[in-house]
């Protein structure tokens, strides 16, 4: 049904390339999920912690424009029982590296991390 709806739509213009905000949200989410100890992202009880990137929704990440320019990134994560402060440092440095290699280091603001849930190794293996 969805495919049919998409097929009937006119081709997207070239301007539909992802915005800086969406790019930043995507690379931050990918970077965070690649860190050992991070199990998944969390979209929130009402699914409000989500960034829309064209036709896709990125759960558990919000990139918001800052008054002074650039974007602040908010990550909502589910982690294992690991030291949280070092984990946050690892996530931030990985996000910064990813932003730098995408040429977005100048627009990356603070990276806020909220641990929404902590799961035990047993729960991780069930997922």
């Amino acid at each position, binding site marked *: 049904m969805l495919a049919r709806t998409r097929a009937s739509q006119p081709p997207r213009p070239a301007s539909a390339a992802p915005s800086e905000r969406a790019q930043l949200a995507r690379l931050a989410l990918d970077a965070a999920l690649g860190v050992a100890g991070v199990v998944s992202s969390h979209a929130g009880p009402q699914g409000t912690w989500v960034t829309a990137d064209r036709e896709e929704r990125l759960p558990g990440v919000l990139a918001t424009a800052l008054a002074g320019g650039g974007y602040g990134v908010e990550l909502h994560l589910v982690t294992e029982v690991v030291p949280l402060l070092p984990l946050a440092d690892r996530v931030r440095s990985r996000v910064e590296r990813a932003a730098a290699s995408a040429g977005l280091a100048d627009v990356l603001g603070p990276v806020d991390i909220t641990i929404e849930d*902590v799961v035990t190794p047993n729960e991780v293996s069930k997922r």
Partner: protein
Amino acid sequence: MILLLRAVARFVVLVLLVALALVGLTAAVFSIQGGDSPLSLPGLAEHTRLPEVEETVGDYLDQLEADGPLAKISALAGVGAVLAGVLLLLGVLAPRRKRLVIFDNGEAGRLGARRRTLAGVAEALAEQARGVTQARARVRPRGRLRIARLRVTVSHGRNYQDREVEERVLSAISPLVDSSGLTPRVEARVGKRGARVE
């Protein structure tokens, strides 16, 4: 209690706003015409029987000025209204409980975790300690001392000492405590009769 007051305050605000909107709408409609026309403010006063109300209120105020049961009842009602107002103000102004424990808040960003999540993990870890039959944990966010506190209360069987169970629980929750910088406080007591057993 505060949750109930907050809900009542929200309801009262909603009712008052709806009433205010209706009164404003009525006043606007009855301002369309002037003089003694049907849609004029004197017309509205007539519809709402304002002269009769004025008479009734005048009688009531006369009785209120004199000594008697009505004056006492009115004074009590006044005190009740003041108390209700104070409670509603509490419901509106009382600060919400912080759901997040903030561990770090610097230029690079903030690190926080849900209180309930941390408490749940602490309970799960504490219940793994030998001798513990039940665990309850509460996390309090940073206060003036800038320290988030984790308080764990555990029950244990009669064949264990409080002190040894507390030490085991402290050791069991150490992965969480070390990882988050929480200040733990463990209290062990013998489980009540009929409570869970190990």
